[in-house]
């Protein structure tokens, strides 16, 4: 119970933040916020002894029991690792933001509410075992991220970036929901654990691959994989603490988490392996290649994040191969998932610190443009040191933790060559090659980031602010992270025992059941082998390319500027759904009643006639029809002549008179068919309506009163013909197929005995079905009032007064 409540603690705390901000003005609101992640981090740390033994803890709070939806806090190795990352880095980010955001100039209550909301959402995502609540928290991360990116909402770029990230991640989230629903339909449960238990049966289902692709789309959009990464660089308009927290350490890893969590279910599928490994590798290469092009510090970090997420993703994909390999626990495949988790931890540490350094540089110099920066090393020694540690770790240089995970990454990629299923024997060789090239670019942009900013001459005098070292408080968080970066290099096996191995057994339950079975020992020096040679190659070639950067950086300009994914996005959002859709809908929404009527009648008759014949419902018989008399024929001829005259008359008055003739003929028909009441009423009503028509005719405006015949339009003729045909066909077949006998006999028998009357029509009107009459006279009354109102109330003529 308390365990589930912990997910909501940040949300509850968020409720009180405006109070602290408004009432306690002298203390930075961040200090109050800081308590929350610190408490949660220490609370979650108490679970480490349990999960490192391979056990898990589960707590549940029913929300909608009838639908099987509940809030679940499921803590195993994987979700505990993420929970500690979220709360731990959250604490550091809050601490950093206290010094980054100005207490008097910023709307701090907004900022911390969004941040706490996000923290709850993330904890919910990683701890939910129920797919519906997982989706709920997933969308909450999208929304809070939207709010955080648009925090400085008076800037155009912030709003644009916020909208873009919202559009892409929510679109992915929706698709993911579809995948969840499919999975729940297949397995008849929302619980991921129960689904994992029945994974083999699920794989046999036809919808399995569809669910897989939909869920992957959710994960890829959230984790900024190719081609959905485009929102991440634009999200850099957010305050730097947000970028450090959301866009490096936590939210973008929600997709990674999702892929890891669903690996036990989907690893059986070839599609999963190819998509996760392939897209991950493509993203790795693409991100690292374009990171070198960027000139904005945070831009470089954004593309680098994209690239590193691709790396982790591809490792998870390769890790899924272990499912298909005999004795995978002893082969090189066991490294992949381990390396993915290891790199995930490392990335969170070094990327968080690098973002914070980028924020410090921005804060202290007033610019993030790398072309204006340089020579800050002697002015900001601490920041430089942290940046150097972070960058070297990102580049994979010892003695930093990035080196260890990069080595394992190369090992995992090389292992693919051993795998000869699913066409990997032919295409698998590409994996280590692309990975290697991407690592070279990673090396280049890491050096580019740190050395262009801090070394060289620079023109410090021209910077917007006079640069100086950041205040103590701002440096605490990046320094802690940098210490972790170095620390993990020296004690990797402790980290592995506490965090990585429990996470690995959560991802690969088919391979291991207990953390001790994960037989991997990380060592910084593992002899001269292919991986080491590849790493040395990366260092050498990367260093040469970095020194000659200005010579070859021009090749980026060779790419056509129009053919970018950002342009594609703009095209879809603004051109396709904005302009084109508008044009499409305005092509039929013309405002012309004639057109709407034409469309409605046309569609109506098409549907009815189509249904009539496709369902084979058309049937005509003249059995039981009355004989036709001569006077009826004559009346019909009169009726037809009247109708034709109405339609083809040259002047309107002819039409009106012809219409009157039609009406009187109809009343004659009523006489013939023995309906005296109807005949009476029809006669009087026809007279009144003809008089009203004449009235309307008399008041037509004098100018432009053209006495011209209705022009013939083929389309209208077609529609009216179709409607006439439809009514005729329906009437004929309805008349020919009477399914139930008429109720009229009952009326005939009871009209005197029960109702005390002789005129069946009138008795029906006032007695049997008086209700209809009651409301018909109400209709009449309303019509009379409306005419009265329309004529008497003329605001425009009498100067707006009644």
């Amino acid at each position: 119970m308390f365990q589930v409540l912990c997910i909501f603690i940040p949300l509850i705390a968020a409720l009180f933040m405006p109070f602290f901000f408004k009432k306690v003005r002298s203390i930075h609101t961040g200090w109050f916020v800081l308590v929350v992640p610190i408490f949660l981090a220490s609370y979650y740390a108490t679970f480490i002894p349990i999960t490192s033994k391979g056990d898990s803890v589960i707590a549940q709070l029913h929300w909608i029991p009838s639908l099987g939806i509940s809030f679940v806090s499921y803590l195993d190795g994987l979700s505990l690792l993420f929970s500690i990352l979220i709360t731990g880095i959250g604490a550091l980010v809050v601490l950093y933001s206290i010094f980054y955001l100005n207490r008097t100039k910023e709307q701090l209550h907004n900022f911390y509410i969004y941040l706490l909301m996000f923290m709850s959402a993330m904890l919910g995502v990683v701890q939910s075992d129920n797919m519906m609540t997982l989706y709920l928290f997933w969308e909450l991360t999208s929304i809070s991220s939207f709010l955080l990116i648009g925090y400085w909402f008076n800037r155009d770029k912030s709003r644009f970036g916020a909208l873009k990230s919202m559009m892409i991640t929510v679109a992915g989230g929706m698709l993911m929901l579809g995948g969840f629903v499919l999975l729940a339909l297949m397995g008849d449960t929302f619980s991921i654990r129960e689904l994992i238990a029945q994974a083999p049966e699920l794989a046999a289902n036809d919808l399995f691959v569809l669910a897989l692709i939909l869920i992957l789309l959710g994960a890829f959009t959230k984790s900024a994989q190719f081609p959905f990464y485009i929102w991440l660089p634009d999200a850099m308009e957010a305050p730097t603490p947000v970028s450090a927290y959301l866009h490096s350490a936590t939210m973008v890893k929600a997709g990674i988490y999702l892929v890891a969590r669903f690996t036990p279910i989907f690893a059986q599928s070839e599609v999963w392996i190819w998509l996760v490994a392939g897209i991950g590798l493509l993203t790795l290469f693409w991100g690292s290649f374009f990171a070198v092009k960027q000139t904005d510090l945070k831009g470089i970090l954004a593309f680098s994040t994209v690239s590193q997420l691709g790396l982790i993703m591809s490792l998870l994909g390769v890790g899924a191969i272990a499912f298909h390999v005999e004795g995978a626990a002893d082969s090189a495949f066991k490294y992949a998932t381990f390396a993915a988790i290891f790199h995930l931890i490392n990335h969170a540490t070094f990327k968080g610190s690098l973002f914070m350094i980028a924020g410090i540089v921005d804060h202290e110099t007033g610019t993030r443009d790398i072309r204006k920066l340089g020579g800050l090393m002697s002015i900001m020694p601490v920041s430089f040191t942290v940046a150097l540690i972070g960058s070297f770790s990102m580049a994979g240089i010892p003695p930093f933790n990035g080196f260890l995970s990069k080595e394992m990454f190369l090992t995992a990629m090389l292992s693919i060559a051993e795998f000869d299923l699913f066409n990997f024997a032919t295409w698998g060789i590409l994996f280590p090659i692309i990975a290697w090239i991407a690592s070279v670019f990673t090396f280049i942009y890491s050096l580019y980031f740190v050395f262009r900013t801090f070394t060289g001459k620079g023109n410090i005098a021209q910077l917007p602010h006079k640069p100086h070292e950041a205040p103590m408080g701002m440096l605490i968080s990046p320094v802690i992270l940098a210490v972790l970066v170095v620390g993990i290099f020296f004690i990797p096996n402790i980290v592995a025992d506490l965090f990585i191995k429990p996470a690995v057994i959560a991802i690969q339950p088919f391979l291991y059941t207990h953390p001790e079975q994960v037989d991997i020992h990380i060592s910084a020096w593992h002899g001269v082998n292919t991986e080491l040679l590849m790493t040395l190659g990366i260092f050498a070639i990367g260093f040469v390319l970095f020194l000659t950067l200005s010579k070859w950086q021009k090749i980026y300009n060779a790419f056509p500027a129009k053919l970018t994914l950002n342009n594609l996005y703009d095209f879809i959002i603004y051109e396709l759904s904005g302009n084109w859709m508008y044009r499409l809908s305005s092509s039929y929404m013309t405002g012309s009643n004639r057109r709407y009527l034409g469309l409605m009648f046309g569609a109506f008759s098409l549907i009815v006639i189509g249904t009539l014949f496709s369902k084979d419902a058309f049937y005509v018989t003249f059995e039981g029809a009355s004989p036709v008399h001569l006077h009826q024929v004559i009346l019909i001829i009169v009726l037809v002549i009247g109708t034709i005259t109405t339609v083809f008359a040259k002047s309107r008055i002819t039409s009106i008179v012809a219409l009157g003739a039609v009406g009187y003929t109809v009343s004659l028909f009523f006489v013939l068919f023995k309906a005296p009441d109807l005949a009476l009423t029809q006669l009087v009503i026809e007279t009144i309506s003809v008089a009203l028509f004449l009235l309307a005719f008399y008041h037509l405006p004098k100018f432009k009163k053209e006495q011209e015949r209705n022009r013939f339009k083929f389309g209208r003729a077609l529609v009216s013909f179709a409607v006439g045909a439809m009514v005729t066909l329906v009437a004929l077949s309805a008349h020919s197929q009477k399914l139930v006998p008429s109720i009229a006999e009952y009326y005939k028998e009871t009209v005197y005995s029960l109702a005390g009357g002789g005129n069946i029509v009138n008795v029906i009107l006032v007695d049997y079905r008086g209700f209809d009459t009651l409301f018909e006279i109400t209709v009449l009354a309303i019509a009379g009032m409306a005419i009265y109102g329309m004529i008497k109330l003329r605001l425009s003529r009498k100067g707006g007064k009644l």
Partner: protein
Amino acid sequence: MKINNVILQFTAKIVFFMIFFYAVHIFFAGHYTPGGGFVGGLVTASAIVLLIIAFDLKTVQSILPINYIYLIASGLLLALGTAGIAMFTGKPFFTHFFDYFNLPILGKTSLHTAALFDLGVYLVVVGVTMTIIQTIGEDE
């Protein structure tokens, strides 16, 4: 120039009563023979229209000082009230009652609550028709 419509006005005075009584006749006869409140109302309205044509709107309004909008309202109330009577006796809405009575002058007569309902219809129809014609006629 005012035209002196002596013949029309004289005829109208007589014909008005003929039409009006015919309307009353078909209203009362409605339950057993063709007719009823609706047609009766329309015919009554047409008798008044005849007066309006023969004289003019103002004269007719002074002869028949009726606010037709109140006529509509009272017709609706009467119809609704008749339908609602049955609810006070525990029967469903719109249950009619009828029986035969020996009335002075008329002798044995059938009295039916449906006739009251029909009277409501009659009043509404007269009211609506006259409202429409009068408002359009008054309009400049």
